[in-house]
């Protein structure tokens, strides 16, 4: 093997410039892969963190996943019962025994829970109407399940308690209504109740849908507005360990019967987009590596043609077809390895370069720069791709070299 490596080195250094070009090709492919992955993964990680930060890890809702079983179905579990036109029972909607459930949840390790009432409302200021989701909350509990306090750009959650009918709205919502801190707007509920509410805080999460269409008030105030006294229609849960959200959600749903969604379930659409995004990234950078692989194919092919005589000589000396094939395969893999090493270094430089870029605009992250993810696994993956591409690219010329008939070569030269 050492001998084959020495021979491979001799042949590659002979075509140094061409070898360098193809190694550069691989290196660029690897570097772009690493840099693109850093941007995409950085953004995705930020986005997921935002989702996790802004929305609760688990939400318990005042609905059930399946319609309640009808008496006829319960009476004849094995019979073919079909009940048409089942209407939801006319009862006060909301989570039953919410206080008790919150107490049970809070007793669990690493779990914080907060009851809220979310209700649709129309916020009116002068002649402008904006429909918004108004969340009634208890500031002390809510603080433990949500990061909304960190996104406040004016006022605090506690200010809700200091004013009779205080409301906190998203910055974008405030712009749309044309209101500012201290202004008083009218909140209209679907039931017809109207409340005058004073803006005591503004927030900016970076997620447009939230900033444009959400408001917060005290739970009691929201219950009055919605005309649903003592009703809670969601319990928000935050976990110490985010990864436990899905199994715990299933556990809670099984125990309480209320529909319980983890953050993964609620953001399934966005997570799907990420999957597609990653597929696109992999195909584009894969294409770069593919082109680079052709460069390697080219070099190895040229070396094979140029070294026809040497191949014949090695065969006459007693090298087997397998030896010759390995000799050229090794050259491809060495080129791939060099490309991967240079590419990793180049990729790291590109990431640091990107980190210096400032957009000069107000991005959602509020930082005006790329969010970069520096993960060693990306480097390893890119290197692995490069090596495989290089090895595959050298297989064909290596096979051709191994099949060369030394007699024909020697005869041609003599």
């Amino acid at each position: 093997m050492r001998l084959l490596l020495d021979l491979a080195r001799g042949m590659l250094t002979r075509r140094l410039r061409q070898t360098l070009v193809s190694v550069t090709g691989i290196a660029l492919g690897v570097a772009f892969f690493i840099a693109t992955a850093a941007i995409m993964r950085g953004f995705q990680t930020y986005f997921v963190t935002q989702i996790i930060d802004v929305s609760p890890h688990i939400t318990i809702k005042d609905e059930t996943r399946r319609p309640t079983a009808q008496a006829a179905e319960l009476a004849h579990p094995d019979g073919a019962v079909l009940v048409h036109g089942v209407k939801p029972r006319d009862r006060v909607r909301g989570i039953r025994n919410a206080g008790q459930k919150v107490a049970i949840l809070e007793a669990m390790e690493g779990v914080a829970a907060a009851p809220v009432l979310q209700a649709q409302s129309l916020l009116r200021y002068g002649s402008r109407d904006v429909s918004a989701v108004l969340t009634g909350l208890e500031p002390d509990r809510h603080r433990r399940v949500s990061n909304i306090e960190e996104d406040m750009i004016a006022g605090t959650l506690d200010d809700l308690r200091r004013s009779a009918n205080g409301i906190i709205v998203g910055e974008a919502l405030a712009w749309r209504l044309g209101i500012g801190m201290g202004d008083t707007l009218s909140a209209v509920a679907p039931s017809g109740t109207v409340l005058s509410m004073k803006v005591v805080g503004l927030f900016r999460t970076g997620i447009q849908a939230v900033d444009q269409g959400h408001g917060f008030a005290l739970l009691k105030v929201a219950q009055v507005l919605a005309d649903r006294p003592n009703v809670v229609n969601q319990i928000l849960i935050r976990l110490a360990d985010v990864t436990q959200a899905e199994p715990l959600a299933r556990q809670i749903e099984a125990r309480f019967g209320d529909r319980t969604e983890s953050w993964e379930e609620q953001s399934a659409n966005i997570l799907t987009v990420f999957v597609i995004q990653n597929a696109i990234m992999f195909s584009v950078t894969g294409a770069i590596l593919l082109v680079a692989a052709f460069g390697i194919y080219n070099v190895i092919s040229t070396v094979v043609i140029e070294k026809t005589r040497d191949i014949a000589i090695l065969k006459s000396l007693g090298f087997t077809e397998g030896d010759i094939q390995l000799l050229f395969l090794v050259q491809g893999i060495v080129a791939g390895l060099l490309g991967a090493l240079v590419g990793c270094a180049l990729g790291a430089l590109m990431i640091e370069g990107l980190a210096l870029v400032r957009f000069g605009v107000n991005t959602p992250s509020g930082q005006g720069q790329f969010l970069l993810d520096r993960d060693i696994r990306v480097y390893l993956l890119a290197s692995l791709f490069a090596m495989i591409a290089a090895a595959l690219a050298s297989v064909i010329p290596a096979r051709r070299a191994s099949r060369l008939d030394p007699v024909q070569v020697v005869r041609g030269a003599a």
Partner: protein
Amino acid sequence: MAASGGVPPLLEARGATRRLPDGPVLVRDVNMIVRAGEFIAVTGPSGSGKSSLLYLLGLLDRPSEGHVLLEGQDTARLPASELAGLRLARLGFVFQFHFLLPEFTALDNVLIPIRRRGLLHGAAARNRAMALLDAFGLAPAAQKLPEQLSGGMRQRCAIARALANDPALILADEPTGNLDSVNAAAVFDIFSRLTREEGRAVVVVTHDAALAARASRRVHLVDGVVVSDAAQAEAPS
């Protein structure tokens, strides 16, 4: 038959015929025995099949019909990898062009077959290669690349490489074709010494009648057929 009962001859061709797929016959029905210590010159006009016969004897090519036996072993059905193993261990080739690997020094070129065989390692392998180079007066040029050597030195280096694994048989195809008469005579001196002093067999293809006269046996080919095969007194150098 001389071989019956005794030690099999080093190399034997039995009715060996080599034809190209599209018809032409290169070598026709050659029966030939090569014994240890023989210095055989294969002569004949251009295109008479001298080289083709040499490739058959050297296991580089397979006969279309007939057999080639190396030390009593029929090679006709051996896989290519085993033929390569036999070439590595028992045979040495010298061609008209030196065919040294241009990226490697004279020493490395001689070391390649030794390292491929893998019987000697490290210093032992180097010592063997240096001894071979030294035997041909190439010790001072051991670290030089082939392009830095003269034509005669290159061919001597190629012979040293052919001898790297101590082969029983050296096959040379017009080894002096590119050399002046002094260097050509030197190459034949080496072959003569290898056969007489070391007991190896040498088969040389040449069109130089004066040099062929120095072999111990001469095989003449015309149109792929052996027309004469006779021992001759080795001419003094």
